[in-house]
Each structure stands twice: as C-alpha cells, then as structure tokens.
C-alpha cells in the first residue's frame, strides 16, 4: 500500500500525464517568484556596507550555484534508481537533467567570476570552491558526451548512470570546500545551522530567488521528461491516445 506511489512513478503513461498536468503550475509560480525576487534584490535590498551594490550579484549567483548542485543530486539519485530497479522513467529523468545542470553551472561560474573581479581582484583563481564547481561542469559535459557516444538507448542509460552516481562524491566536496580548505570564497551564510548572517531585507529576496530556481528546475525537468519518455516508449499504444489529447 505504502509503495503504490513508487510503482505509479514507474509507469510511463502515468508520469507523462502527471507531468503534463503539473508543468503550467510550476512555470507560472517560477516566473512570478523570479519577478518578485529580482524586484526585491535590485530595488528593495539596501546596498551592502562593504561591497556596495556589487553584492547584488548574489541574487543570480547563489540560485545558479544552488541549481547546479540540486540538478546534479537529482540526476545521480534518478540514475541510481534506474540502475537498481531498472526503471525506465528514472533513466529518462536522469537524462533530462544534464543540459539544465551544465548551463546553470556555467551561470554560477561566470557570475562568480564577475563578482570576484572587484571583490577578490581576479576573475579566476585556482581555489577549492571554484575548481570543484568547474569539475561539476565537466561531470555534466562528460555525462552528455558519454550518452551521445552510445547509440543504444539502454546501454547509454546504464553507462551514463554509473558516471552520474560515481561523480556524486564531488557534491559534498563543493559544499564543504570553503570550510575544509583555505578558500577565497566566503563560507555559507544561508545554508548553515543557526541564524543566517544577513538582514531580512537582503535575505528574503535571496530565499525567493532560491525557491524560484527550484520551481524553474522542476518545470524544465517535467517538460524534458515528457520528451524522454516519448523517446523510450517506442511502440506503446498509450502514446497514440496521449498525443491525440494534446
């Protein structure tokens, strides 16, 4: 009984229909929160007492970096579920993640670089946080290259899933890099125990942007997942009905 939801998530027609129904909600919620977060971050938040208005980069940098990690963990968990239970939908979900993750890792690196130029005096430094985030980009790109190098979809699913699962060791390294090593990068100011080190006028827009990017990821994942399911269900009769409905 408790496991019925899990079995239903293994059913491609069920997941396809569920994703179709959910996408507009996530799209509009993400769009509304992005507008609110941008207004809060650019207009309502006061300038930082040390960094002036340069600190406003945080409202695009932190959500992008959060997105890159969230996408990777989602991809690795889906890949592991696909490997362990041979679940086609899970492989489809993992395959949907890679391009999203790679692009937001680039956003995190590039906005961090622009932020670092004035605050650290350099666009790039071979720093533990920066290097581990760069490795995350290579993991996403390697995953995509591996998939496109294997023609057989099932073999591509299994091989790339293995890569995704092994690469997950990089995620705690990224998160703790600023604590384990001497890093130029600041330590976490939101994702830590106890009170965040930021006044509410600065913190609230950041939390809104983090929530917005989380919803954006779910939206992007659901749209791509539907495509991946269609690609895997080559001859299923439900596809005829599903496509006729749209």
């Amino acid at each position: 009984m408790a496991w019925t939801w899990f079995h239903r998530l293994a059913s491609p027609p069920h997941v396809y229909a569920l994703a179709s129904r959910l996408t507009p909600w996530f799209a509009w919620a993400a769009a509304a929160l992005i507008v609110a977060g941008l207004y809060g971050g650019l207009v309502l938040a006061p300038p930082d007492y040390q960094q002036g208005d340069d600190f406003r980069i945080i409202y695009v940098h932190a959500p992008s970096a959060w997105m890159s990690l969230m996408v990777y963990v989602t991809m690795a968990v889906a890949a592991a579920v696909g490997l362990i239970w041979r679940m086609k939908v899970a492989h489809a979900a993992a395959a949907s993640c890679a391009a999203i993750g790679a692009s937001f890792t680039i956003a995190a690196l590039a906005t961090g670089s622009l932020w670092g130029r004035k605050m650290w005096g350099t666009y790039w430094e071979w720093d533990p946080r920066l290097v581990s985030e760069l490795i995350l980009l290579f993991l996403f790109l390697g995953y995509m290259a591996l998939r496109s190098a294997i023609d057989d979809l099932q073999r591509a699913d299994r091989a790339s899933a293995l890569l995704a699962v092994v690469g997950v060791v990089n995620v705690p390294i990224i998160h703790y890099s600023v604590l384990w090593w001497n890093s130029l990068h600041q330590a976490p100011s939101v994702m830590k125990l106890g009170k965040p080190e930021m006044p509410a006028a600065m913190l609230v827009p950041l939390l809104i942007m983090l929530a917005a990017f989380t919803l954006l990821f779910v939206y992007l994942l659901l749209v791509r997942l539907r495509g991946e399911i269609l690609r895997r269900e080559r001859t299923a009769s439900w596809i005829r009905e599903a496509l006729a409905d749209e």
Partner: protein
Amino acid sequence: MSEFLYMGGYAAFVWPSYALTLVIVVLNVIWARRSLARARADARRRLLRGGATP
C-alpha cells in the same frame, strides 16, 4: 533611474551577471520545449508510418 543603472559604480559587473543568468534561463525554457516538440513529432511520425501499436 540613471542612479539605479549606475549600481554604485558596479554596473559593469552587476548587469552582465543578471543578463547572462536571464539568457541562460530563457535558453533553458526554449531548449526544453524544443526537445519535447521534437520527441512528439518523432512519435507522431512513428505512429503514422507503422501504425506501431503492439
């Protein structure tokens, strides 16, 4: 307004950060929708060609 755009002298770093992130968000939406549209078109073509129901 011009003071807002000036960003306390950090305009050259703040605005490119926001522009780049926005471009990546928009591109992701376009790519995801295009990927689904292509999969749908392929599935339709397969159905027409084979009448491929098991």
